[in-house]
């Protein structure tokens, strides 16, 4: 696949007078992991449902895997884990996979090997003959991932895939998503867990009140690198340090922003050479949490659906 896995232009959805999605411009390249971030009610799940044709757009347009939104041919190559999902409690994990393999048209001879692959991937190989009704929420989420990854899709859409998982489970999911990316699968990760997105995504789109308020690589969004030093004993003349970048004092920390991350060891060495006693060094930039909260608060709280 050479074109974008997902491309939308001004995608809009209204339920009566309620505007769920005002205007979504989103692009997910092939083999790219893109995070869709936003507060509750921002329109993330509506966006996903529009991409899959589960709801009809009120305006705008888009393509998924080069086909119009909701196209059945495209859906054959998409794996989807819904946010509020529940599989048939009276089926076994194996039977849930068989059902979805049947619906997806996965050739019969490939099914057994494919079930083994995805069940092993999500750590449910030894529970494949157990009924889903006996699964914990986390195990059901793992099964949902297995269903989404069935048939090696070109695009996987995961709506809050780690919401019910413990730290081990979340780490497993991160590994699964990285594995999918390495196989060339594009992933749209819909999440409100910023740490998750920060660790996994090549690009992020922040949605608030039904539109994208910021989008780009993490580097773009998080802005310039900085270093914070907790240092005592520095002379009044701090010009040697100012050579690395603008200086500022913040809450007892000496901050240089922006700074070339490669030169942080030199900053520390210079401070020591100036007679300073360095107690702590905090290299980094604004966290995604900071960026997200700033954007959402500036834009106004809450979404409409």
């Amino acid at each position: 696949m050479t074109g974008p896995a997902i491309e939308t232009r001004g995608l809009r959805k209204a339920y009566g007078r309620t505007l769920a999605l005002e205007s979504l411009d989103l692009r997910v390249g092939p083999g790219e992991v893109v995070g869709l971030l936003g507060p509750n009610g921002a329109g993330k799940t509506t966006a996903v449902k529009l991409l899959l044709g589960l709801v009809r757009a009120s305006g705008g347009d888009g393509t998924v895997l080069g086909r119009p939104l909701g196209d059945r041919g495209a859906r054959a190559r998409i794996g989807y884990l819904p946010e509020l999902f529940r599989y048939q409690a009276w089926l076994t994990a194996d039977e849930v996979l068989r059902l979805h393999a049947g619906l997806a048209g996965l050739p019969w001879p490939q099914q057994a090997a494919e079930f083994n692959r995805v069940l092993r991937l999500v750590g449910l190989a030894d529970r494949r003959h157990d009924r889903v009704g006996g699964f914990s929420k986390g195990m059901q989420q793992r099964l949902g991932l297995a269903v989404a990854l069935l048939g090696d899709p070109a695009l996987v859409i995961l709506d809050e895939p780690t919401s019910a998982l413990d730290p081990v489970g979340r780490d497993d999911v991160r590994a699964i998503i990285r594995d999918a990316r390495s196989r060339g699968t594009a992933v749209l990760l819909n999440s409100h867990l910023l740490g998750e997105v920060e660790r996994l995504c090549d690009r992020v789109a922040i949605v608030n009140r039904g539109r994208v308020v910021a989008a780009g690589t993490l580097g773009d969004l998080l802005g310039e690198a900085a270093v914070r030093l907790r240092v005592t004993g520095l002379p009044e003349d701090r010009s040697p340090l100012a050579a690395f970048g603008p200086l500022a004092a913040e809450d007892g920390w000496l901050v240089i922003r922006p700074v070339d991350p490669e030169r942080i060891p030199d900053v520390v060495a210079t401070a020591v050479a100036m007679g300073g006693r360095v107690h702590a060094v905090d290299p980094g930039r604004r966290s995604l949490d900071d960026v997200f909260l700033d954007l959402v608060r500036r834009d106004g709280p809450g979404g409409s659906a």
Partner: protein
Amino acid sequence: MNLRIVLVVAQLTLREIVRRRILWVLAGLSVVSVALVAWGVDRLVTLSRANGINAYELEVGVSQILILIAFMFSFVLAMSAAFLAAPAIASDVETGTVLAMAARPMHRADLVVGRWVGLGIVVAAYAVGSGLLAVGVVRLISDYAPPSTAVALGFLAFQSIVVMTTALALGTRLPGIAAGAVTVVLFGLGWFTGVLGSLSSAFGVQSLAGLGDAFRVLFPTDGLWRGVIYGLEPPQVVVATQLGGRLAAANPFFADSPPSLAFTAWCVVWVALVVALGAWLFRRREL
């Protein structure tokens, strides 16, 4: 429509009914009901013979009991069909189960038709199975064999399929409980307007008779129920009732003729139209 997906969904529906023990509960209830009926018929036949009731009179009496048993089964079947079919799609939507399925490369109509096929097999099998059991037990005890068991059970199954189809189609847009309740009300209204229509016809009140006929076209369960009666009643009852005048002919448990071929064909078309309507409603639904 994709036949492969229809069969996958039909198989899922059958498995659900078996796994959730719904079928076994219904079968158990039928066995208990038939056992009670057997006891009642056995007592009636034994005690009536002791009282000198002749074979002809006994046959007429048993045939009427059999029709009442069929009525009870038709009611149970209608309720079962309504409450099996109403949540079949509605609860999948409410729980979100349908999201992952509808995102697959399928027409939503495949899901509706697949559900209809699976439920239709169960409902028809249950109607025929429980009906055969009741007729067989009554025959064993009383020696009364209805003139056309196959016709009676065919119409009984058809009536249940009409009820199931209605509930399934309504469940594509309404919550399961609402769809089930509306279907039961329609079934009740169908029977009521059928009885009203028969009485009106017997008394020459043509406007009301027309109302009954119109409702029978819109919701054909009562018309099909007449087929069940006709298959179970002996010819001598038909003759005796026809000689019995207006009141006898207006008896809601009497049918002087089977449903016409045109009406039966309309019922087939009706079912197809309602399934298509359900598929269209479900396709339009925002999930």
